[in-house]
């Protein structure tokens, strides 16, 4: 076959590996040096005029000597960061089935709305009369969150999911202290399958963590909770749907048992995406639940933040909500910022400066308004449908630890099916990278061996799911056939081969430092 220059287009016997490039680049995949290797101390990409001469009033505390920073011109800056971006996988790149993280589509309308100057260019401490629309937006979002969860209060300010957990557990602690039981109720029950943030949060504010065993079917049984209950128990922290992707069937009984024992029910809302519009956590008996706006309500994950973690509260906890909060009076919105303004609310304190993640509130409300009550219900149903479709497409080849319950929004497999192949969950995940997929969550939850937690979200089409299923089936069959190297040495085609994490931890290099002069290095 010839192209119009008459040259053969077939590669023949040549392979890419036999022709390394001078630069190390591979066409669109371009190596990029560190900023500190290409930047210059005297270079700036911002044009600023030197101020007219004046007498500084710095009290003699001027900085002496160079800082060590470097700069780039604007085109160089653009190229540096564009090249870095091209070494990243995002939701817009492809299916991102990271279980428990809910990597769904991030609508750009939300970005546009968050950048309206009336939201992005207002200061948290300008007079309240000049930010009534912002306060109204927060109040509206709070209303949507309370209706969707069936609760009567929400603390908006927590900055991320784990921060919402902290605020919720602080409210529980404040309620217990108010009853005079602070000294006796010190134990928080946490199932073994929980996110690591749950025990870390409880321990951070002085609780003693006691594990709750999971049953063989992946759920928590009310009898196992009751066996641990006593006057020393403050709360349980339970994720629902749980981290195995199962809706806890006895959640109502568990909530009742906690309340009868004088304790509280903290629900980790990381997996709320499965049940929005289908069931309300407040109806199930929860006392507090954080909502990851960056999961369920689609604010971008941004490579690890910023998130937002408002925490809804039951009537039992509402009056302990932290500062600040908004009080509506007719069409006027007042921000309650200090204890003396709080009236009968016994706020336990403050978890952050200012009022929380406004930029995320705008995005989340834009998402919610776009979906509406009907669209959000449909989104949850599609998320659950997609997860079960993947499960049905893979369960004959890969092992399901908990086949007795339908999956919710994520399907959990273990590594029993890889037994005797010499291939691990990690190897399998790295081979998925070569196929153009971000791997699923690996080795979590801890209660199953070699966990693979797949959450496709509602954003995937049927064709996308079919290709994903066919790809995983092909990999699974190759694994079973003993094509070990494809897995153990993967990835082959990513910007980097497998990275040495042990070396990074043993001798931590956490910042760039100037190279040593050659003579010194030789000594």
């Amino acid at each position: 076959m010839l192209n119009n220059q008459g040259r053969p287009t077939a590669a023949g016997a040549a392979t890419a590996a036999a022709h390394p490039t001078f630069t190390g680049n591979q066409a669109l995949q371009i190596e990029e040096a560190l900023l500190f290797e290409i930047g210059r101390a005297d270079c700036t990409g911002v044009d600023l005029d030197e101020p007219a001469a004046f007498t500084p009033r710095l009290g003699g505390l001027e900085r002496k000597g160079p800082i060590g920073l470097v700069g780039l011109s604007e085109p160089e800056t653009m190229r540096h960061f564009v090249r870095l971006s091209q070494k990243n996988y995002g939701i817009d790149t492809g299916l991102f089935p990271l279980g428990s993280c809910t990597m769904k589509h991030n609508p750009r309308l939300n970005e546009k709305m968050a950048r309206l100057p009336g939201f992005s260019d207002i200061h948290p401490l300008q007079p309240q009369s000049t930010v009534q629309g912002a306060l109204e937006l927060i109040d509206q979002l709070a209303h949507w969150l309370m209706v969707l969860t069936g609760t009567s209060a929400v603390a908006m300010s927590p900055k991320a999911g784990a921060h919402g957990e902290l605020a919720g557990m602080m409210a529980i602690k404040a309620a217990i202290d108010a009853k005079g039981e602070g000294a006796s109720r010190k134990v928080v029950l946490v199932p073994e399958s929980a996110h690591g943030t749950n025990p870390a949060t409880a321990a951070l504010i002085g609780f003693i963590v006691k594990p709750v065993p999971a049953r063989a079917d992946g759920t928590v049984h009310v009898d196992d909770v009751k066996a641990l209950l006593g006057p020393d128990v403050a709360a349980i922290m339970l994720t629902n749907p749980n981290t195995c992707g199962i809706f806890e069937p006895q959640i109502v009984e568990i909530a009742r048992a906690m309340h009868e024992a004088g304790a509280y029910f903290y629900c980790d809302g990381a997996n709320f995406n499965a049940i929005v519009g289908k069931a309300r956590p407040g109806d199930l008996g929860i006392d507090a639940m954080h909502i990851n706006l960056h999961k369920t309500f689609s604010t971008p994950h941004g490579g690890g933040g910023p998130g937002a973690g408002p925490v809804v509260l039951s009537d039992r906890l509402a009056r302990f909500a932290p500062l600040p909060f908004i009080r509506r009076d007719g069409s006027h919105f007042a921000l309650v910022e200090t204890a003396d303004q709080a009236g009968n609310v016994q706020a336990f304190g403050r978890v952050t400066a200012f009022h929380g993640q406004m930029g995320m509130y705008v995005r989340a409300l834009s998402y919610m308004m776009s979906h509406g009550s009907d669209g959000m219900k449909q989104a949850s149903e599609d998320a659950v449908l997609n997860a079960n479709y993947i499960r049905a497409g893979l369960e004959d080849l890969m092992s399901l630890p908990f086949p007795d319950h339908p999956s919710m929004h994520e399907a959990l497999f273990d590594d029993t099916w890889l037994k005797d192949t010499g291939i691990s969950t990690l190897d399998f995940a790295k081979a998925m990278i070569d196929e153009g997929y971000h791997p699923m969550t690996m080795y979590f939850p801890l209660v199953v061996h070699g966990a693979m937690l797949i959450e496709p979200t509602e954003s995937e089409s049927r064709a996308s799911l079919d290709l994903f299923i066919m790809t995983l089936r092909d990999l699974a069959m190759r694994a079973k056939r003993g094509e070990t190297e494809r897995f153990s040495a993967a990835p082959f085609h990513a910007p980097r081969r497998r990275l040495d994490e042990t070396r990074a931890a043993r001798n931590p290099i956490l910042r760039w430092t100037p190279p040593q002069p050659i003579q010194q290095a030789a000594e």
Partner: protein
Amino acid sequence: MRYLPLSDADRTAMLARIGVTDIDALFADIPADKLLKAPVDLPRRKGELEVERQLGRLAAKNVPASSVPFFVGAGAYKHHVPATVDHLIQRSEFLTSYTPYQPEIAQGTLQYLFEFQTQVALLTGMEVANASMYDGSTGTGEAVLMAHRVSKRRKAILSGGLHPHYAEVVRTLSHMASDSVVSAPASPLADEDLIGLIDGETSCVVVQNPDVFGNIRDLRPIAAAAQARGALLIAVFTEAVSLGLIESPGAMGADIVVGEGQSIGNALNFGGPYVGLFAAKQKYVRQMPGRLCGETVDAEGQRGFVLTLSTREQHIRRDKATSNICTNSGLCCLAFTIHMTLLGEAGLKRLARINHANAVKLADALAGVKGVSVLNKAFFNEFTIRVPGKAVDVVEKLAGKGVLGGVPYARLAPETGLDDLILVASTEVNSDDDRAAFVAALKEVL
């Protein structure tokens, strides 16, 4: 619904493949009486146009900083952010990626985190910095907990110049963790005796510089006194641009430095999202909270980056972790890194000089208004004025004249009774006209 690719035909076929006839069969574990029969009582779906209209109406009820002479600071500052920054942080591969758990396909995020950590370490004059915290205030709370781990003591001393919200975050966390906190009284003239408060139980002294009143402090005597008693100095800043002009906290002896990075690269956003900067001496690195990015090599010996020292963290250590923190402030720290790259050392120092020059001009102009006095001897881009009458009323009247003229200190700390103080900030965005408008409006309202 425009975000949902499945058609009804898809749904029916997929249910059949799964082996059920009704979607609710997949929700069978939800108790039947708790399964909602109808959509909840909220509006139905809307197209883009209608969402834009409704949210646009709410946005229009607010007064943006750029639309008026604007002098509000106290922990968040109005700076000009180059257009390049907002373009780059919206690249799909940055915006829609996750925490870099799979480093082979996350080198973009990891490399900028490494660059960010280096920039923060240099700027603060410290040996190591982490990959960011939620914001300056939560970072301060975490710094106090870290100092307790390092010193094995549990008493923090807070300067009266610490931002009242930051102090409240520390007090809340400490109360919940049964640690003790001693707060020095508010100190508008920066004449407090912190050293006299340090004793053998003291874990750390927390000092903000410039403090909430704008005063520039010499941290060296406090560092020396704290360290002589086995305590740590935690230096806090809320205005990162100040570090371009005044001595770094590291050079003044701080053990931990924590601050708000919003000023570089990030919009005001009504208080969030922001980016907490967190740096420390190398010897304390294993007690640090938050993500850390480190250099390593791949299987072919090529340099690459990974998240490291994760045995400090909650997903490994659970209830023994250094913190419960799970994320950093990724995209905001990317914005910081890009803006700092554009500024470079030369640009940052010049930006800082412009800020200081503008604040000096404004301070002199306001000091000329009858009844107004400027309290600060030394300041960077923010200072405190005393006005006749209640500061809250003055600021509200100024707003009525179309000038956003600062923060009444009493809004942050009503219990201090310091009702006549206004915190006033001036950055590179303020023009001579803005200053003239402020002075004229202030004369009218007093």
